[in-house]
């Protein structure tokens, strides 16, 4: 029970991060491998804001989100749009964007290393216990989970109820047809990419309240987010959430029963299962 709840609390934040990546991959068609660095940058921002001015991370996210949005919008417009324009087919865009975002990822790590050094960073925010169903958990974990649920819920409503959300889902389903019904694919792709970056950075700010990060941990989160997106199905909000919770629970299980050093192996086992048995994602339909 203890493991289950810790796992779900962790999975909530994973869901948020994977949701960000899913927006970028599902709509903007960019496999963003620099996603983890955006997350770590969000974490650094919260860390600095908290240690320098005692600003609560819950307030910091309202600063992190617009900053990350602007940064990701610029990255998409300046660096990724030219690749979209020059690509002759989907495969070429995939290869190009993978290489370009690898470059961005390394540059991000390099910049953070030279500004902040290679040390782990953490701070003590709301580090008092709360009781849930007979066991105690860190208040910061519970708070992060609640925030993640709120943001995921808001995103879900926005995607399913608003006109912009409808257009974005249309692009995710059929990018070529979306243009025919008068959807500005270029504009909305940039928007989705930027929004995805903002969501990820917020996830980073939240995760930094209870996990220690360092400049080069980004790639681990990128990998986990990618596995969640593939498992949940590209563009599938419900699948993403279920997959994130499953990964959170499985990781906590492995960490507490076997060894905390084997969490990536747990994620891989899950990934392998998906590849072998359900490559179309948890709720995806079999391609005909």
């Amino acid at each position, binding site marked *: 029970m203890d493991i289950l709840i810790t796992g779900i609390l962790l999975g909530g934040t994973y869901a948020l991060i994977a949701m960000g990546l899913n927006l970028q991959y599902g709509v903007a068609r960019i*496999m963003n*491998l620099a996603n983890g660095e955006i997350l770590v940058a969000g974490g650094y921002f919260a860390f600095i804001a908290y240690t320098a001015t005692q600003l609560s991370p819950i307030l910091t996210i309202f600063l992190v989100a617009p900053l990350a949005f602007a940064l990701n919008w610029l990255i998409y417009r300046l*660096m990724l749009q*030219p*690749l979209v324009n020059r690509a002759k087919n989907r*495969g*070429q865009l*995939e*290869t*190009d964007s*993978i*290489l*370009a975002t*690898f*470059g*961005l*990822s*390394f*540059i*991000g*790590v*390099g*910049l953070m*290393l*030279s500004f902040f050094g290679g040390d782990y960073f953490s701070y003590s925010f709301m580090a008092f216990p709360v009781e849930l169903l007979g066991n105690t958990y860190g208040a910061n974990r519970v708070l992060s989970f609640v925030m993640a649920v709120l943001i995921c819920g808001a995103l879900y409503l926005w995607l399913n109820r608003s006109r912009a959300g409808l257009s974005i889902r249309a692009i995710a389903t059929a990018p070529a047809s979306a243009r025919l019904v008068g959807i500005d694919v270029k504009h909305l792709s940039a928007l989705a990419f930027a929004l995805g970056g903002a969501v990820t950075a917020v996830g980073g700010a939240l995760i930094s309240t209870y996990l220690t990060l360092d400049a080069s941990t980004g*790639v*681990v989160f990128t*990998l986990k987010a*990618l*596995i969640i997106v*593939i498992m949940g199905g590209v563009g599938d909000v419900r699948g993403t959430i279920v997959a994130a919770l499953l990964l959170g629970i499985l990781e906590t299980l492995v960490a507490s029963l*076997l*060894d905390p*050093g*084997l969490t*990536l*192996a747990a*994620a*891989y086992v899950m*990934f*392998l299962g998906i*590849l*072998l048995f359900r*490559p179309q994602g948890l709720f995806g339909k079999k391609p005909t």
Partner: protein
Amino acid sequence: MSLTATDIRNLCLASLVFAICALLPLGDQGYWLGLGVTIAMFTALATSWALFSGPTHYISLATAAFFGVGTYVTGLGIDTLPFWSLVGLAGVIGAVLAALVGLATLRLSGVYFVIFTLGLAELVRQVITWVQNNSGQKGLYVLTDLDEAGIYWWLLGLSAAVFLTGWLIGRSRLGFALRIIGDDETVAAHSGINTARAKVLLFMVPGAVAAMTGAILAPRYVYIEPSLAFAPILSFQVVIMALLGGASRLWGPVLGVIPFTFLLEAVSSNFPNQTTLVIGVAFLVIVYLLPGGFVGLMGRINRHLNTREGA
């Protein structure tokens, strides 16, 4: 198999180049030989990488995983088996592992493959660390009488074997099938090519070569531990070198290996903290300025000159 006059000339030229390279340890035993080892190592790695990724356009980041497995083969077996058999054994294990990874991922789209290989080195590292923690053993000592020159000759021989393999594949039915897959996978599948099988078979080549490279280099490390053997950065260096040179020609990657080795050498001795940044910039240079690498650049210059002459 019939050889044309050009083939024979190219083979002779290649043998001559390798023979000249083999003389390096006679001239210098210090700095330049060390650099020679690095270049020979990356030539084997990047050329074999491009054999797979050139025609398929799949970006493999598994090099570090196979390399690490190779060093562990030497580390575990050096007390009981002769060195040459360990290199061969590492090659077999590398090829089998590559086949397993390929079977799991290469039937699906390229993205799954990239993601799977991205974390592969880290995964193997975690598992080995865990096994070592549980068995109480921390690292492995590799003590041999193999010196730097010996390692260099081994690596040079391996590179020569990689070139020969690549040349033979290019002339075989498999090579022909791969070129079609690279141009258009749907067409390939419709003309009766088992695309998944061809890709898995080909992926075994870089897997085996990377494991053998690791096995050869293990004596140089003397003490092997997981974080050293499975450094993920190796995979990225190989990708950059191969693409910088150009993965579409057999001799392309070498053109990237040599300048990038010198560049990294200069950067790491002058600005040791900026290597990550340099690798990042190198990726962007490849995507935005040098698509197709130096090979592609040479092709464009040639075309440009030809059209000027024609006009």
